[in-house]
């Protein structure tokens, strides 16, 4: 059975229920198949069938995903690629083939680079604190608490509030003149922050919305994985006299390596595509009068739907796609590095 050796990280595994539940069960049922094949020629046929099953089945299992994805994911992606190579008006439809001109046009616009900068900045402001906070919360949840379910469901509360409502509430809080945040800052003698004028404050406000909604969610994912860390490790560490903080860094973090990678990758992908929050941050939804918080997706939207230049918007979509992939790979490598360092 799989008694985990310390060298083998358990990853995202919330549990090993298979050990207790399943391992005992299937054994008596399964042999019947093999025993019920007395005739030699049939067993050849059967073997071939089994072979076929082994060869084909994996594809059958992944096929529902890929078939559906082909319709609702791949087709749009390829369609977008095709659009990006044409002059294409949203109202007027397809125009001439222009090769990579849309890409060149977009790269030559300073707004593209501004949007890229904003995207990365908001992404860093949201994902880094988020992962750290989620780890801390998960660790707190992982200690023997009273009323565990209450606390666990509690941290998931922000997730049940619709993003539209979150944006509605938070944009009210961050009003420049009459918002609650500036009101409170005023009480302690701090000048009002220009949340909708200055670049960094606007990024902080938007990152706050993101962090609000996703920190608890990620904490639960971490918690699930923490629960799978064999308790003996902690015991051993404690016998060695390691403190709480040391065990956290020398056992918990390395053991969560795969989960951390998972969370970092998914939040990279989500974070770079951030759309709802910046869009609903003011009443115009274009990322600020001076594009202070215009992210790449907002830029894409402005090109496509305000300017009706679908060709350029498609080009941005494809570049964003490539940027996200590059970021995901870099993050994967970096995270793996950091997490495995702790292990050594």
């Amino acid at each position, binding site marked *: 059975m799989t008694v985990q050796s310390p060298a083998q990280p358990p990853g995202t595994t919330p549990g090993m229920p298979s050990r207790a539940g399943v391992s005992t069960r299937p054994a008596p049922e399964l042999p019947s198949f093999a025993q019920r094949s007395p005739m030699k020629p049939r067993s050849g046929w059967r073997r071939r069938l089994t072979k076929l099953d082994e060869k084909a089945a994996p594809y059958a299992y992944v096929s529902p995903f890929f078939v559906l994805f082909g319709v609702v994911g791949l087709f749009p992606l390829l369609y977008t690629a095709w659009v990006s190579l044409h002059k294409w*008006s*949203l*109202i*007027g*439809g*397809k125009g001439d083939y222009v090769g990579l001109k849309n890409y060149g046009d977009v790269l030559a*616009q300073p707004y593209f680079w501004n949007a890229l900068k904003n995207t990365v900045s908001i992404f860093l402001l949201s994902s880094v604190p988020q992962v750290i906070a989620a780890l801390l919360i998960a660790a707190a949840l992982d200690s023997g608490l009273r009323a565990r379910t209450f606390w666990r469901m509690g941290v998931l509360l922000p997730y049940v509030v619709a993003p*539209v409502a979150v*944006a*509605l509430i938070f*944009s*009210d809080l961050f*009003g*420049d*003149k*009459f*918002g609650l945040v500036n009101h409170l800052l005023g009480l302690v003698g701090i000048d009002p922050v*220009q949340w*909708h*004028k200055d670049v960094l404050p606007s990024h902080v406000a938007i990152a706050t919305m993101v962090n609000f909604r996703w920190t608890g969610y990620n904490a639960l994912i971490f918690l699930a994985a923490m629960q799978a860390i064999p308790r003996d490790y902690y015991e051993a560490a404690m016998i060695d006299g390691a403190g709480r903080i040391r065990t956290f860094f020398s056992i918990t973090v390395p053991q969560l390596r795969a989960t951390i990678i998972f969370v970092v990758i998914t939040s990279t992908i989500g974070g770079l595509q951030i759309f709802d929050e910046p*869009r*609903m941050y*003011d*009443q*115009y*939804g*274009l990322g600020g*009068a*001076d594009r202070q918080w215009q992210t790449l997706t907002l830029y894409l*939207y402005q090109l496509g*739907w*305000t*300017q*009706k*230049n*679908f060709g350029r918007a498609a080009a941005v979509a494809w570049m964003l796609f490539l940027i996200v992939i590059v970021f995901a790979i870099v993050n994967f490598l970096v995270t793996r590095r950091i997490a495995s360092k702790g292990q050594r």
Partner: protein
Amino acid sequence: MTSRSTRIGAPAVPSRHVVLATLTASLLALSACSSASGGDSPSTQVGSTSGGEQVTLTLATFNQFGYEELIPEFEKSHPNIKVTHKKAATSNEARDNFFTRLSAGSGMADVEAVEVDWLPEMLQFSDKFTDLSSADVQGRWLDWKAKAATDAEGHLIGYGTDSGPEAICYRSDLFKAAGLPSDRESVAKMFGNTWESYFAAGKQFKAKSKVPFFDSIGATYQGMVNQLEAAYENPSDDAIRATDNAAVKKVYDQVVQAGIADGLSAKLQQWGDDWTASYQKDGFATMLCPGWMVGVIEGNAKGVKGWDVANTFPGGGGNWGGSYLTVPKQSAHPKEAQQLAAWLTAPEQQIKAFQKVGAFPSQKQALESQDLLAFKVASFNNAPTGQIFADRAKAVTITPYKGTHYFAINDAMQQALTRVEQGAAPQESWDKWVADVKALG
């Protein structure tokens, strides 16, 4: 005022609506070409039914048209027709559905309401709608109202319902506190009927009060630019002329001078959270004010006394908002649908709708009606809004041309004005706008 009034529908998250609305408009084009290649033809037009046959019509509206009690009345007088009323919340949502179904070639109601802001877009596809012109309704509407719904071939595509003639709303209590005349006649005189005189009144007010004179230069600009016949594009070939149009630059300079240099603007962008909150905090003393804005002010300014309406509008008349009823060719009963639309937009019915929900009529005859002219709003010092907006409606003379780039250019302009209110140098912000427009290509 496309960009602004598209936002009225849902001030909280309006940007989405703008985006969605434009989106569906464009979906239309996209699936129009896809369905052309697919070869499925949406022409389901059936010859109109003859008299006695029982017919069920669907009517699609949005927001509040005030038709709830009119429909049973219509059914009573037209026993062979039953009406199902489908109501969308916002005009933007309706617009979305409208274009979605138009592009899909099916699923539209027999009578579809269309807001003035998406009318130009819709007119590009006027061949998909029944020509409603008929002797019965000839001359029913104010000229500009009917003209806006007439396509290049002279077909009347929509019957006008309500409209949004603009006056100026103001805080009489603040005027009084500043030692200025505060009754609506004197204030109207003080505002005068040019932008120069309105801004001069602002300076007079500013000398005696700490409260800013108007809400934002963006909103004020919108009222001004809408009086230019062809601000951004040439009506003849739709080519962009915005950056070379001296009239646009003049309006820009004038509003920036008044709002920023002379300090008249509260710098509160319309529909923003600060703007909404400012009604409770003496945020500003006046604003450009179409008829339906009275309800917005009433809601936001609950408990605040002193709002009133001055019967004037600088630079001539102005209109903001209003709708039409159309009959898509998809309808299987175009004749009965036209009957319904004609009946609902008749002056008698529109007056009832006005009394019910405040949808201000666009019919000439309705503007003469005593029921309308006697209408007053209690929370606005009993202002005779019926009379005032009737006068304002008659003052509207210009139907500004809005082409395919209007939306993007005007949005960029609103951003430019916001930048100025946030402290950018006016010339710098203008140059940025010019660059933005040039980059549209």
